[in-house]
């Protein structure tokens, strides 16, 4: 066991953990951030996707000892009552079915939109290739990413209670 301090969604957390413990389980079992999901444990399904320094990573294979930088999870993608444009687009396009993979889908898509303002279909195919949806919501995921790309304002955030900002 060893002591680590990790910054998650803007707050520092002291964690005493086995150095090999993946970030996924630190988030879920130690910090109670269960929006990040376990799906396969071998970085093949993408349900565990979080951001480290803004890059999409599979937290199920990233040991706590290897985390260097700021971690953002689905719970911290947008501050307070605000929604990320992707979260609003996920609602507007009625994307989720069971919903289990969608945290990871949104986190992968958010990393894509951060790097590519107007992603092409090929950009989406490539950025989202690591995220499996068992319910088959891919058509709406694609539509929602495009909708979010169109809707983004300067801050990149929308109010959760209102319509999209112009």
């Amino acid at each position, binding site marked *: 066991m060893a002591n680590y301090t990790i910054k998650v969604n803007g707050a520092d957390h002291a964690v005493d953990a086995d150095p090999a413990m993946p970030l996924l389980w630190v988030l*879920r079992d130690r910090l109670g951030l269960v929006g990040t999901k376990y799906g396969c444990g071998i970085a093949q399904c993408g349900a565990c996707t979080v951001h480290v320094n803004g890059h999409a990573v599979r937290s199920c294979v990233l040991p706590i000892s290897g985390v260097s930088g700021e971690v953002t999870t689905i719970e911290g993608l947008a501050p307070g009552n605000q929604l990320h444009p992707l979260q609003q687009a996920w609602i507007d396009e009625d994307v989720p079915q*069971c919903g289990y993979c969608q945290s990871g889908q949104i986190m992968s898509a958010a990393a894509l939109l951060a790097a590519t303002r107007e992603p092409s279909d090929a950009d989406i195919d490539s950025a989202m290739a690591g995220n499996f949806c068992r319910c088959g919501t891919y058509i709406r995921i694609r539509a929602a990413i495009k909708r979010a790309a169109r809707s983004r304002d300067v801050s990149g955030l929308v109010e959760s209670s209102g319509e999209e900002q112009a």
Partner: protein
Amino acid sequence: MKTTMNRRGFLKASALATGGMMLEFSLPLSAIGEELGTLVGSGELNAYVKIASDGTITIYSANPEMGQGIKTALPMIIAEEMGARWEDVVVLQSPVDDSKYGRQGAGGSTTIPRSFDLMRQVGASAREMLIGAAAESMEVPRGELEAKDSKVTSTSGHSLTFGQLASLAVKQPIPDPDTLKFKDPEDYTIIGTSVSGVDNLVIATGMSRFGIDTSVPDMLYAVYHKCPAIGGKAVSFNEAEIKKLPGIVDAFIIDGNGDVNQLLSGVAIVGRDTWSVFAAKDALKVKWDESAASKDDWDEIVRTGERLQDKGGGNVIYRAGDVDLALRRHTDRTIEADYSYPFVAHLCMEPMNTTAHYKKGSASTGDEIEAWVPTQAAYRIPSVMNDVFGVSEKNVTIHQTRLGGGFGRRGSAEFVCEAVAISKRAGKPVKLTWTRPDDMQHDFYRVAGFQHVKGSLDKQGRLVAWDQHFIGMTRNGEGPSGSRFSPSEFPLLNLPNTRGTMSTFDIGTPCGPWRAPGSNTHAFVVQSFIHELATLAGRDHLEFLLEIMGERRWLEPGNIRALNTGRAIDVIKLVAEKAGWGRDMPEGSGLGLAFHFSHAAHVAEVAEVSVDTQKRLRVHKLWAVADVGPIINLSGATSQVQGSIIDGLSTMAGQKITMSGGRIEQHNLDDYNVMRIAQAPDVEVHFIQSDNRPTGIGEPGLPPLAPAVGNAIFAATGVRVRTMPLTDLGYRLV
């Protein structure tokens, strides 16, 4: 009479009025759920509806939500009949309580057909109580009042909101269900519209809670390691070594009762977090007694299936006319073919899990079990607990969570039994989480199968004889739902000379319902072979298929859940029109058509594919037309068909579970093929909203996919697809 009925009485009356059709259920584990301060001062009109003084209408959804959208669709029906505005509605999952909600389950695309009338009654009853309150308050006759837009308005234009009326409405007599009138569908403002799923906000923000997210005070974490050869018994393991690993609290063998549906033998490891027990599981060295374990071997199963295909015969399950005579008479225009399909896994995104607390009780109260379970069938669990643990059913409390996928997998309770057994030994609440390999290797698989089909054409190229031999599998003599051959399976009832026969052989691998059980493979065989016959006849597939349907009629008069050839013709014609059937296709491209009837739904699909010289297959687009009667949530229903098509294609393209020495050979997503976003086709969905009763759409969109794609591959290449998955034939989905 009606004034003496209390609220519970109303519900019982409702249940009787609908022939005991009450279903539904779930658990407000989600923190968001019960945080409704607005419920203060609310009026509970019945078990499903509460109205707060601020106008918030809370509707409870009773059935499990696993992605099929029922938690949105059922409350839409209630809100419609109430005259509520959808914007005012908050939906919560109801607790599990059969005294209030009847049997709370989901499966077989049955929730909508079973619940539609009850939900209308619930809504209409609430509406009548609100109108009664308004009549009293405004001192006007009920006949001059209308409930609409969450308020009751009089003909003179005076109105009171539902919120204003709530406290008075609960004091109104409960209407006799027989007196309730339902809205004219012409006046619907909610049913038939597109509504975004009620949990989409919590899902998109990571706040929804699935079973695997359960946390209770003092909880430990567990894994359970069963014999890789299904049914083997744990004899011993490296106990001392495992117990010394970091984060491990205990490790022990559970003998179980040998029932794969309840509690198989295995090694339990209990620890302080999920990772510790997962890591310890990897370090396990177990000695197994495999004498009673499955010995299944995929190659041997194939040999047995093929031997039976060649041998023919089987038990006759349906016969019409004289099929042997018809086949003999048209020998020059008779063809036969062998079809087969593999075992596949459910692969729910959320692996099986349960959080359980076994509580020792006193001699007078008895022991208790409390469990948080992502289940399709919470109502079945108490009796299983009684069987396995001897705990009285009344001492079993089940909390139903949201399900990260179901597809038929989550009707069994073995993962509940495992968690309870571990908690009992640990003396604490325990969250059992299956690893992905556990989930893939201890499934109740979609059963594999083999079929041999023969058909004959007359001189005019009409299909006059159909002889279908279905070869399924049983375990301990019992066949899973996917290993059945129904006498009403299309086209046995449509043609003058038909015969259906069935053979089975026993295997050791557990199988169970998998989205559209039976239909998902029957459709592949039947609709592909009909295309083979149309091709032999030199006729257009569309015209050939319509001819088989014949006159517009119910094939089983009096059974409204049977095939209606008129409805079939309508969906087939419309899908052909939408897809531009008959248009010229470029070299290497083709259109394929298929129809299937299941779950009381008529569905036709057309696939457009292209195949290159390296057998790279691109499925460009699917058109689907379904008749499931009136649609409740257009967005949700469309999503189910899109998802079914992608599920069907993902499965057809590359999925196959094999076994050797009773051991499942696939482990995880690195050796089991699933479709990714780049391969997903465009899907265009249309509904024919006939005046039939609404029926379910969670499953029937799937079966026509495989034959539509197979027939399109033939159209593109001239090569027939008679087995799945396509990777076995050298195709690669791109």
